[in-house]
């Protein structure tokens, strides 16, 4: 049988991250992939309502406390292996996980994105 240990860093507890949940997909404009690109702007109104601007869309969301918190785990699998990952662990390079962060709340954007039209030509 396999035993995989999950540990948290010694000292203070894990950091707290925020989860942002979107309905649908985010794609990059020129299909260049998402990594390294600016996704958008996150604003909060005076009432604390989160507002997300992605490209030319604007989304309104809300902050929700997670009933079931998340933990983010980082996997450490010893030496890199060329073969496919299997449940079997090599005794000298056992797989383990560390808890990177806890997530206790999220910003969820469920409303339909509205396009922002900045140039409305005036009727002549």
């Amino acid at each position, binding site marked *: 049988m396999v035993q995989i240990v*999950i*540990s948290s860093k010694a000292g203070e507890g894990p950091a707290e991250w925020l989860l942002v949940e979107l309905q649908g997909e*985010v794609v990059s404009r020129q299909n260049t992939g998402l990594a390294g690109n600016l996704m958008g702007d996150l604003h909060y109104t005076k009432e604390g309502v989160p507002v997300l601007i992605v490209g030319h869309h604007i989304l309104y969301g809300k902050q929700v406390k997670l009933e079931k918190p998340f933990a983010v785990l*980082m*996997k450490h699998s010893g030496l890199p292996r060329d073969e496919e990952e299997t449940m079997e662990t090599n005794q000298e390079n056992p797989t383990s996980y560390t808890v990177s962060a806890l997530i206790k709340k999220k910003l969820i954007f469920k409303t339909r994105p509205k396009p922002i039209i900045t140039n409305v030509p005036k009727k002549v």
Partner: protein
Amino acid sequence: SAKYCPILTNHKSMESLFIHLIIRGDKDEHAVLCNEDETYDLKIADTSNLLLFVPGCKTPDQLPDISASPQLVHAQIWGFSNCYWELRRQRPRLKKLKKLLMENPYDGPAVGMQEEAPGPKYTMDDLLERIQASREEIEAHLQNVHACEIDGFWRILDFDYEMKLLGHVTQLVDSESWSFSKVPLSVCLEELGSLEPKSMIEHCLNCYGRRYSNEDGQVIYALDEDKVCRATAQLLLQNAVKFNLSEFQEVWQQSVPEGMSARLDQLRGLALLDRSSKPETISLLRIEDLPEDTLERFNSLFSLREKWTQDDIEPYIQDLCGEKQTTGALLTKHARSSVQNGVKVYNSRRPIAT
């Protein structure tokens, strides 16, 4: 390369969950997650929503209330995912524990110059490697099955040997005219130490009695009448398929130590009464001999008997209840009820091959 995997929990206190966590499982088993005293099922769940992880991103309540100048903070999205692992608390799979220990039960020290016959033996670490449960759950179950640690290995006692030890103790209690609740450890060890290892005598007292100290600081045991009578019943019942109930009750009462009362309610989860047959009968049916999986357990029970009253079936399904689930709820889910002779009975929802 580092991979990340969000886990969802429903644990009351997130922080306390993360002390010493281990994922356990064989290739053909579903993985479970254990901390020191609990076991959880691990299942992958996915969502059509996109989950973005933003370390250190602040929410309005965490930002200072400066309406003067707008603030610009750069936050990086660490990653995103469509799926996560969900944890669901479940009862630990412990049937394997007894099965492993029964590969080589202990029936007393080796006789004369002989060494104990070779056979598989398991340390606690060995058990943690093989059983999908937390350490505390394993320790509690070891106590339930009356296992003891001998030379670093956890051993289950051969039942006849266990009853032999108990017999020595109860005979001594009788000859010394002690009260069942005042059995002194030191005298037991002195008088019985020549017959059996002292550690075994003490183990027997721990299994069948409650340990305490009297005013003089001596270690005393209060024998548990229910446990002693129950074990005696098992010894009698395992010798035949079925017994005439009234004959059994007579023999049973005569076999328990004088002064103890043998009562049928002591046999819940151990024996099954058939009050519909003439004469009424009783037979051995131990919950630990039944399947661990809920559906298989119900199938097994309904193959043994077509219709059960709630009172009869309850001891055999009690351990299947999830957190906050009642046996009534379990029966509603897995059985069909009807009324027979004015009594509510349960039968299988599906046809059972008997």
